[in-house]
């Protein structure tokens, strides 16, 4: 009680806005639809897991006269039930369709947000080529007039399936059995993959498999340090420089330039007290509204924001620009174990607003105050 109240007073100067919600079940998904809606989904075994389409509180969406809007609640706009656990969800842009993946990993599920009611309905499934017991396929969407679903468990099973016809339009065609940890579509023809080992590549689907990678001949890359890795390629329209961030379960973070992946621009050690207890939850995201800023989570109950502007060299320890500790201090269910942040995401256009979710089913929306900014 005391600690929570102390933190609340602290929070007055740390955050502009702060909202805390209790979902009925923890989520590993925070996927935007437009700039006013997000999807969350439960991931438990042996139960009906909810998939929810939530509309942001009005207070967070209005641009002017915020003070006149007392609405602070999320609205459940649509909901559906999944028999399998949902580990990731992708919205197919410009459609009412969603694709989910999780365990068991033999199928991807396609859903539709119904128009005249509030139900999210299952419409079809996409069979996964290689079925594995404990691995689940990563998913990314090629959006176009005929959307394609990029998915795979390993590099060898990577393929793109046309959503409507269910025909395979692309396969990696390699026999490499390295396990994937993330997939990201960059534009109509390219995607990035990151393997659990830290091997990262950028692929052009118009060509036969010839990605530019951060390893050569199977050697090099951050994977030599061990651990499990994930990555994100930043939007980077404004300034040149490193736009690929690759995060390891031991807290190491490498920044790479897409033009020369083999030679990292910088490699730092983030301020984490212990390696991630569940490396599948590792997440690194670039801020869409702040230059050179990124956020990491998946090590503990915190989300850390870093400014990478002055990073150079290898191996230096870095301090976060901001640390969100809300999930630790505002424990919803009063359990003994501290919650673990399962995922986080940046608001599409409010520069310092993030959403984060934790294993205790809490969901926070926070807008942190930049102490270093000259006002």
């Amino acid at each position, binding site marked *: 009680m005391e600690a929570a109240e102390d933190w609340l007073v602290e929070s007055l100067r740390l955050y502009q806005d702060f909202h805390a919600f*209790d979902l*009925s079940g923890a989520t590993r998904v925070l996927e935007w639809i437009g700039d006013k809606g997000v999807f969350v989904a439960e991931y438990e075994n042996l139960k009906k897991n*909810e998939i929810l389409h939530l509309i942001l*509180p009005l207070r967070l969406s209005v641009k002017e006269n915020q003070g006149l809007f007392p609405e*602070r*609640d999320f609205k*459940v706009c649509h909901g559906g*039930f999944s028999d399998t656990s949902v580990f990731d969800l992708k919205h197919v842009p410009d459609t009412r369709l969603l694709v989910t993946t999780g365990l068991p990993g033999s199928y991807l599920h396609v859903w539709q947000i119904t128009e005249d009611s*509030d*139900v999210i309905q299952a419409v079809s499934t996409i069979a996964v080529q290689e079925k594995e017991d404990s691995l689940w396929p990563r998913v990314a969407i090629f959006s176009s007039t005929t959307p394609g679903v990029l998915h795979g468990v390993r590099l060898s099973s990577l393929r793109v399936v046309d959503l409507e016809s269910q025909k395979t339009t692309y396969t990696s065609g390699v026999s490499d059995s390295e396990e994937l940890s993330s997939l990201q579509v960059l534009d109509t023809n390219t995607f990035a993959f990151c393997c659990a080992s830290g091997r990262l590549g950028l692929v052009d689907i118009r060509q036969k498999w010839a990605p530019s990678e951060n390893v050569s001949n199977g050697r090099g890359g951050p994977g030599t340090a061990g651990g499990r890795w994930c990555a994100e390629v930043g939007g980077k329209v404004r300034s040149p420089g490193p736009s690929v961030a690759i995060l390891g379960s031991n807290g190491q973070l490498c920044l790479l330039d897409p033009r020369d992946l083999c030679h990292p621009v910088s490699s730092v050690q983030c301020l984490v007290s212990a390696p991630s207890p569940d490396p599948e939850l590792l997440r690194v995201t670039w801020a869409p509204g702040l230059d050179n800023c990124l956020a990491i989570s998946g090590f503990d109950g915190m989300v850390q924001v870093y400014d990478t502007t002055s990073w150079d060299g290898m191996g230096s320890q870095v301090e976060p620009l901001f640390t969100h500790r809300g999930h630790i201090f505002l424990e919803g269910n009063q359990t003994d174990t501290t919650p673990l942040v399962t995922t986080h995401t940046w608001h599409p256009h409010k520069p310092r607003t993030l959403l984060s979710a934790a294993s205790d089913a809490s969901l926070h929306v926070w807008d942190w105050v930049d102490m270093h900014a000259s006002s």
Partner: protein
Amino acid sequence: MPEIRVTPLGAGQDVGRSCILVSIAGKNVMLDCGMHMGFNDDRRFPDFSYITRNGRLTDFLDCVIISHFHLDHCGALPYFSEMVGYDGPIYMTHPTQAICPILLEDYRKIAVDKKGEANFFTSQMIKDCMKKVVAVHLHQTVQVDDELEIKAYYAGHVLGAAMFQIKVGSESVVYTGDYNMTPDRHLGAAWIDKCRPNLLITESTYATTIRDSKRCRERDFLKKVHEAVERGGKVLIPVFALGRAQELCILLETFWERMNLKAPIYFSTGLTEKANHYYKLFITWTNQKIRKTFVQRNMFEFKHIKAFDRAFADNPGPMVVFATPGMLHAGQSLQIFRKWAGNEKNMVIMPGYCVQGTVGHKILSGQRKLEMEGRQVLEVKMQVEYMSFSAHADAKGIMQLVGQAEPESVLLVHGEAKKMEFLKQKIEQEFRVNCYMPANGETVTLPTSPSIPVGISLGLLKREMAQGLLPDVKKPRLLHGTLIMKDSNFRLVSSEQALKELGLAEHQLRFTCRVHLHDPRKEQEMAVRVYSHLKSVLKDHCVQHLPDGSVTVESILIQAAAHSEDPGTKVLLVSWTYQDEELGSYLTSLLKKGLPQASS
């Protein structure tokens, strides 16, 4: 009539006017009688013509129940009882009875004085209406008549808010009114036992929301106050005398020291008196069990909060003032507002809904120039903040309450069915109950199967068991006995015991039938022939030839006699008791067919 019927009344789907009609086992109850604040005409009242088109409401309704003092639950009560016409009992909790008339009078003043409404209920009508009120205590079973009983449960939300259980025999309905499942600082949270009603009726308004935590709402309030005070501004918080003010005072008091703030906090004098009144209501309303559910402290004694004097409003420097009335429509809060509105460092925080026509409503709509009396224009430069502190249950809260009460079915009012399909599925799935969502004016009929408990006598039970057949859980067992109904008590006993208890003698009914047969032989030979015939035909029955010449089949007696006039005809007298009717009839028709021509 084993069914329960529910009809939410009124037009419009949005929150604003709660009024639900329930018919349970022949009793008719009206739940709440709210006003829709958004309309200025008849649309603000529920449509009472649904109740009965011709008859008198007093004759039709057994009682009216009001859940709490918010106007969207009781605002139409004086109109209903005095202008439409109802003289029966109106049930509500003690605090609700104390606070309702104050709110109704306030509202009446605004409507008539500020908005110039003509056809509105008068002060006298409010008084007359309140005379019909019967106040109830929490968890007290109240007999409305010898069949209908009601019981109030703690709902949190506001002082005096209750959830009501309505019971007739073994059928019951629980109506939640407004409630919250996460505790408030001074009111705690709703609680109900596993009463397993046939139906739970609740609002759907917040069912599709996920509420921001209490902590974050409070944080926002503290942040705003802090910011204003830090820049030297004055903060005005208009409050209704009873309720929200306490909550906010506790909040500020708790954090003032932690935040190391020196600015004074004032409570206007009118509020202090009312706070004492509020405290008394509060202490008698809640009980030990409820008070244990929230922070223990004397929330009516404050260290940092002092009594306000109107002269202080002109003091330099920052300060925070709580003043009435809550919608800035008159009195001290409006006076202070006028003094402080012109300075952009100052702030006004509106903690609740403001009725149309009040200054509060205008500034919350974004108006920055207000026309006051005497054509004076007031420019509002101060910061206007609208905050919502009312405690409501959300999707999660509803699931918690359903889990506590364990109803057979759930009914959600005031929502669009299409927009709540997911919630319906969720409730049906999680609790395996039916979920109904009627539109306003639509009636939902729930079939119920009321169970009638019947006591069975030990003797009867033993006799049944002695028959030796093992009971089969899947098949119903046929039991013969006598049902005695006395004083709503049902007992099943053996016939002998019933006769004994009632002091009656058992009558034996015996039927005798004459069958005429052509047979010149003697009666004795006839009897033998009858015996042989029946013995061969009725292999499953006990057929005997008695020494006196009569034949018995089980307990049926057949005697042969000569016809008095015709020696060629013999008469068979077949006689049986009422219990052997079937066999007796069968035997008679068999014998009428005649005897075979075989030799004896």
